[in-house]
């Protein structure tokens, strides 16, 4: 139908018409006019009327309306989560009509395999899943309330302070998340490294070199390090005690989304967003179960033997699947976290064809983790030998894996054996090398996308479905930058200003509290309308405080914005007057980009190519002294002088 592909199928005596949605087809807008705040009244409208770039939604909505008109009943078969349930509800309510809701049922499934979908059809709920819908709707509404009000407040404060317009935004979860990054940057900026000394010693037994560890990993005083060195260097140790134990290393639980994203980052340096995108493709191909899950558990309803039987057909996993199938009972290692809607991420057993590089990596992680969680614990024999060297206690440590168990299935976990020779009490052990090394304590590491996601999870802000997008938004807004996440001057300025004048926006506790209430709606523990009403009530005093401090907030952020803009637009010193700076400018009327001197008495200006990203180089043209910039033509970088009248034209292509 027009641009929309839909499917007609038969199931028994029923004719089924299957129409795909396109994500959310409806969105929230302000009810009533006025670009101001506070705004509390809202309504749901087709997404193409609310957000730019959603023009295809119109055709899908029209398809639902036309095809839904003659139907006798309706089935919501979107993904089983808040978002999926809400997508279907809005389509039925607004595109088909309110009457459709009472004739609707809900399919629940965690994989897109034929068996699972058939089972889900047979066992579908008689009605829509209204508590899940209410939870999804309340989340959208509270996020909209916070987002629209705080963003408008920020934008208007800056506009009133500086007269210039720049759209700024901050959200309910964005604020505290940005706060984590700022807090870490503060810790790094005010970090004082402190010296300590590490003892590095070795012995040779039977011609082999073994490291010896001093009982204290670090010495805090130089004189102690020197005393130890003079007492132990070239000395002879005596074995005081040999301790042996077998460590039982349990298999890891199966992945939930956060675990998978962290592991993909650790093993393959894949960003959480890429991991999620790859996992969703695998889910849509029916190769793995639904990835947006918090669960680390595989319930008894999952037929583990069936999955292993299918994996046996894949040569990459066949030996391990066969080995596991020989076990009398399959008991997966279960994690602590659960999810009411979905089990942990697991393979369906279907053999994928032609996966992209990232999907292949994610698929292999999921399958091997699934196999590992069914494996036996690994057994590692460990030996610790206490050696007395002139009154100082050292250790020799060894380990040998006696049974690899699950480690056999999961090559992403490194385990290195370090065997020790047989030693017994009273034996002499020579110290063949000993040195003390001065080290310094290190500042805490910056967040990466994975550790920032983990911090959000630990603080219980955002959801498994939204956290990745929130980090992405902070980056797009120019508040954070880099894979080793740094806060930008703009991000810093916003957090610092809001912490002083409007700390409620940055409150982790408030965000977490609201998050917990939103979660409880799904299980019937909270009423959605009351939660949204409560969010409005909480927002009131925050916005009132903001308004009361609008001038200092606007001034502080404008100053940061001016500094940031100036830094971004600075091309170099003016060669004409020698006093001003040459800055990039955009004519607000014609949108023409040009460069000019900041000195009001200097009339120097330069025309520039339009619709090109211009990167400052910090260099001046050797011929005329005008700034050199880098631009891309047909994806090739060119460094050139911006002065069209430059005697040499100053043009040189980068290698």
């Amino acid at each position, binding site marked *: 139908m027009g641009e929309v592909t839909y499917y007609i199928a038969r199931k028994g005596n029923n004719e089924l018409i299957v129409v795909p949605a396109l994500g959310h087809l409806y969105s929230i807008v302000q009810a009533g006019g006025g670009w101001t705040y506070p705004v509390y009244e809202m309504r749901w409208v087709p997404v193409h009327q609310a957000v730019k770039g959603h023009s295809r939604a119109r055709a899908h909505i029209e398809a639902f309306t036309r095809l839904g008109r003659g139907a006798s009943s309706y089935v919501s078969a979107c993904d089983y989560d808040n978002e999926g349930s809400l997508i279907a509800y809005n389509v039925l309510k607004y595109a088909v009509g309110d009457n459709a809701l009472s004739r609707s049922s809900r399919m629940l499934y965690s994989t897109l395999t034929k068996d699972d979908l058939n089972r889900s059809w047979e066992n579908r709920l008689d009605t829509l899943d209204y508590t899940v819908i209410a939870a999804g709707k309340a989340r959208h509404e509270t996020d909209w309330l916070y987002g629209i009000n705080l963003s408008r407040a920020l934008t208007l404060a800056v506009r009133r302070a500086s007269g210039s317009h720049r759209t700024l935004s901050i959200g309910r979860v964005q604020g505290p998340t940005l706060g984590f990054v700022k807090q870490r940057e503060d810790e790094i900026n005010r970090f004082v490294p402190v010296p300590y000394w590490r003892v590095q010693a070795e012995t040779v037994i039977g011609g082999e070199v073994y490291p010896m560890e001093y009982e204290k990993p670090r010495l805090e005083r130089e004189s102690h390090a020197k005393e130890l060195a003079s007492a132990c260097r070239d000395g002879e140790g005596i074995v005081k005690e040999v301790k042996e134990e077998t460590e039982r290393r349990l298999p890891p639980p199966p992945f939930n989304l956060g675990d998978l994203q962290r592991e993909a980052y650790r093993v393959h340096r894949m960003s959480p967003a890429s991991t999620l995108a790859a996992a969703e493709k695998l889910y849509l191909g029916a190769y793995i179960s639904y990835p947006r899950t918090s669960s680390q558990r595989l319930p008894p309803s999952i037929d583990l033997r069936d999955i292993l039987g299918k994996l046996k057909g894949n040569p990459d996993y066949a030996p391990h699947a066969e080995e596991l199938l020989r076990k009398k009972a399959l008991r997966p290692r279960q994690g602590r976290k659960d999810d009411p809607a979905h089990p942990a991420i697991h393979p369906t057993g279907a053999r994928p064809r032609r996966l992209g590089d990232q999907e292949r990596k994610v698929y292999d992680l999921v399958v091997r983790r699934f196999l590992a969680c069914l494996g036996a614990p690994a057994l590692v024999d460990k030996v610790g030998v206490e050696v007395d060297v002139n009154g100082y206690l050292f250790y020799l440590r060894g380990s040998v894996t006696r049974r690899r168990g699950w480690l056999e299935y999961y090559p992403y976990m490194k385990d290195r054996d370090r065997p020790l020779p047989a030693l017994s009490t009273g034996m002499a052990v020579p110290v063949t090398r000993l040195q003390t090394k001065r080290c*310094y304590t290190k500042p805490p590491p910056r967040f990466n996308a994975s550790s920032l996601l983990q911090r959000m999870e630990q603080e219980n802000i955002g959801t498994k479905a939204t956290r990745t997008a929130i980090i992405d938004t902070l980056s797009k807004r120019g508040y954070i930058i880099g894979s080793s996440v740094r806060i930008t001057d703009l991000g810093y300025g916003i957090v610092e200003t809001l912490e002083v004048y409007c700390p409620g926006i940055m409150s982790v506790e408030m965000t977490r509290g609201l998050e917990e209430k939103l979660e409880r709606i799904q299980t019937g523990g909270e009423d959605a309308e009351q939660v949204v009403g409560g969010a409005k009530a909480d927002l009131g005093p925050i916005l009132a405080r903001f308004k009361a401090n609008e001038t200092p907030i606007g001034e502080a952020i404008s100053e940061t914005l001016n500094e940031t803009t100036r830094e971004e637009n600075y091309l170099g010193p003016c060669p004409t007057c020698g006093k001003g700076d040459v800055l990039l400018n955009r004519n607000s009327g014609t949108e023409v980009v040009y460069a000019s001197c900041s000195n009001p008495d200097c009339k120097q200006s330069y025309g520039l190519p339009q619709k090109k990203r211009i990167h400052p180089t910090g260099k001046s043209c050797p011929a005329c002294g005008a700034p050199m910039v880098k631009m891309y033509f047909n994806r090739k970088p060119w460094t050139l002088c911006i002065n069209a009248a430059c005697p040499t034209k100053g043009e040189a292509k980068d290698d």
Partner: protein
Amino acid sequence: MTECKVCDRPRDGDTVYCRRHSKAYSSLEEAYGRWRYALGLGWVEYLEKVASVSGVGVWVREVAEDILREI
């Protein structure tokens, strides 16, 4: 004078530094005890070492250099 001695931000209360550099100064003072225990250094020698050691925070280095300029 109401500006921080190191940067042009407003001073924090009755200190000579802004909030950022005040916190850095506190960190410097806190860490001095551990440095003195470790190496037996005096305050000036400590500041000289801290200002050049790898991993020191930007604000801490700025404060250390500011104090050293005054001595």
